[in-house]
């Protein structure tokens, strides 16, 4: 763009008797007119490089994150090798560390959050884009986005003093009585549990899943809806065939992006999950996640091996979220880019 616009203005007209600057070097010095050009050209280059430096710094930060995680975890990686990820012992005193309970806790709580949040989010997105009166639309999206502004620590606080007592008094006895046979709802009913963490995570990821789902649903061309309605479909059939089916890649991306958020969430989960490194089938049992163990133990970790093991847990968390986010990003991109092309075509 720069070359196109500035080129004709600044480039001297090639004169037959002088040596014309080759077209490959549009930034060759221009001696013809005022000195101002030279300085503004210098300023342009300087500005450009300054902005480039900012952009490079983003790359540098990510490289730095990877480098620090790998370097600081080297002791634990060399001591335990891959065994680190499959053993269950977590004993700082004897210096024996295994990350399996944390990996299980992270995956389980996030999965539970998705199971609770995804149907609700798709429901809300469907309601706001397709069903509700126009006047309500803005208000509803504002309210759902309000959920996203609540800091994690406040979710945790509310969870500790409101959600956990409710779970302990009403929900857990109910689930144990009627669904105890599934084996998912057995054992003591503390309140602080995988279930509590899953519920709070679900509330926390609903805004992001909803807003992206809404975006991809609105990206579906209006003609699709009209075509389905024109052959006599009901509203639901229009939504299912005309909208959801077209937006499914993007919705999948939204779900995976929500998963990425849930996997890395720290404080609220730490306050509610019970912080016990164990693997239990029951959702009433306390658990522990990768992020929580770092939050709880990192500042008190002494010696060399203990902090190193915690950094390795951080590395594992980083790699899992990286993978999940890349997949989600590609899926959201594929649909929004497609719709942008359709819009310009």
């Amino acid at each position: 763009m720069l070359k196109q616009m500035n080129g004709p203005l600044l480039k001297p007209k090639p004169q037959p008797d002088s040596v014309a600057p080759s077209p490959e070097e549009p930034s060759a010095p221009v001696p013809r007119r005022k000195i101002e050009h030279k300085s503004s050209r210098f300023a342009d280059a300087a500005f450009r490089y300054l902005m480039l430096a900012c952009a490079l710094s983003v790359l540098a930060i990510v490289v730095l994150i990877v480098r620090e995680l790998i370097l600081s975890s080297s002791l634990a990686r060399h001591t335990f090798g891959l065994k680190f990820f499959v053993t269950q012992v977590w004993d700082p005193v004897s210096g024996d560390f295994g990350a399996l309970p944390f990996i299980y806790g992270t995956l389980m709580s996030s999965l539970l959050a998705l199971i609770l949040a995804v149907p609700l989010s798709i429901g809300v997105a469907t309601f706001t884009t397709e069903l509700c009166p126009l006047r309500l639309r803005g208000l509803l999206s504002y309210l759902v986005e309000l959920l996203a502004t609540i800091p994690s620590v406040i979710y945790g606080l509310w969870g500790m003093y409101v959600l956990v007592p409710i779970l302990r008094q009403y929900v857990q006895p109910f689930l144990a009585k009627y669904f105890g046979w599934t084996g998912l709802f057995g054992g003591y009913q503390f309140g602080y549990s995988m279930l509590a963490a899953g519920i709070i995570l679900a509330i926390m990821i609903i805004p992001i899943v909803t807003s992206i789902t809404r975006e991809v649903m609105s990206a579906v061309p209006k003609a699709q809806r009209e075509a389905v309605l024109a052959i006599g479909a009901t509203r639901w059939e229009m939504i299912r065939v005309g909208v959801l089916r077209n937006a499914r890649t993007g919705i999948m991306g939204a779900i995976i992006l929500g998963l990425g958020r849930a996997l890395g969430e720290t404080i609220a989960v730490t306050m509610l999950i019970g912080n016990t490194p164990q693997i239990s089938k029951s959702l009433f049992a306390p658990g522990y996640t990768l992020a929580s163990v770092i939050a709880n133990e990192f500042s008190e970790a002494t010696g060399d091996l203990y902090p190193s093991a915690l950094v390795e847990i951080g590395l594992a968390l980083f790699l899992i979220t990286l993978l999940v986010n890349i997949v989600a990003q590609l899926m959201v991109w594929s649909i929004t880019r497609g719709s942008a092309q359709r819009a310009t075509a």
Partner: protein
Amino acid sequence: MIQSKYWWRSLQDKLMVGLATGATLVVLVPLVAIFGYLIYKGIGSLDWNFLTKIPKPVGEVGGGMANAIVGSGVILFIASLIGVPMGIGTGVYLAEFGKKRFGYLVRFTADVLNGVPSIVIGIVAWSLVVVTQKHHSALAGGVALGIMMVPIISRSTEEMLLMVPQSLREAAWGLGISQWRTTLSITLRSASSGIITAVMLSFARVAGETAPLMFTTLGNQFWNFNINHETAALPLQIYTYANSPYDDWHRQAWAGALILIILILISMSLVRMAASRGVFKGGN
């Protein structure tokens, strides 16, 4: 197939529409419950001491979080010194020069950085600043939060700049104004309301972060204005108090939570008002 059984299709339609409406109502329940309980508990716990005093010794009733509120301000200030220029610079680069392959790489990296869990960024700030300095500091927390601000600001800045019509840039170039001057005085100014919104949003997002501060700024029960020392921060203090066994500290945790959410909501609604009334509008 669609022709047959109209009653079934209409029933299905009503059912699904009902479910979608129901889902919306269900989602509004925690929103109302959280805000309602927060206001109920918070207002009852808030008093003048809370805003002006520093914490009392462990277990004693009274005291406040004044040092944490100021500490959060200091940390956020350091964070924005790092995050705002880098974020806006990256956004400018992406919008004005980033149409090639390298631009896509930067965009993708920014999205990756946005998805990195905040606790991991805390570890990195710890090993970069705390380990080098050999002590915990407000600076380390500021670095962690600043890193988190960069991708949020850069992506929205880029979006805002791309919305400035190309003809505006061309008009400036046509007058012989240099590229950097055009970007600073024409493009950035026209998009300023959007960019300020982006900055405030990133501010609101990191203001409530606790995880990256836990082992960088560490927390402090006293006043501290030195950026090289441990500093109290509001979210951190709420976390500590919520987990404590003292009733008075629980009360203060609720008051702190109310203050925190009020600060966040004020900054967000200022942005909304300013953006909708066009206060910041420069050229457009």
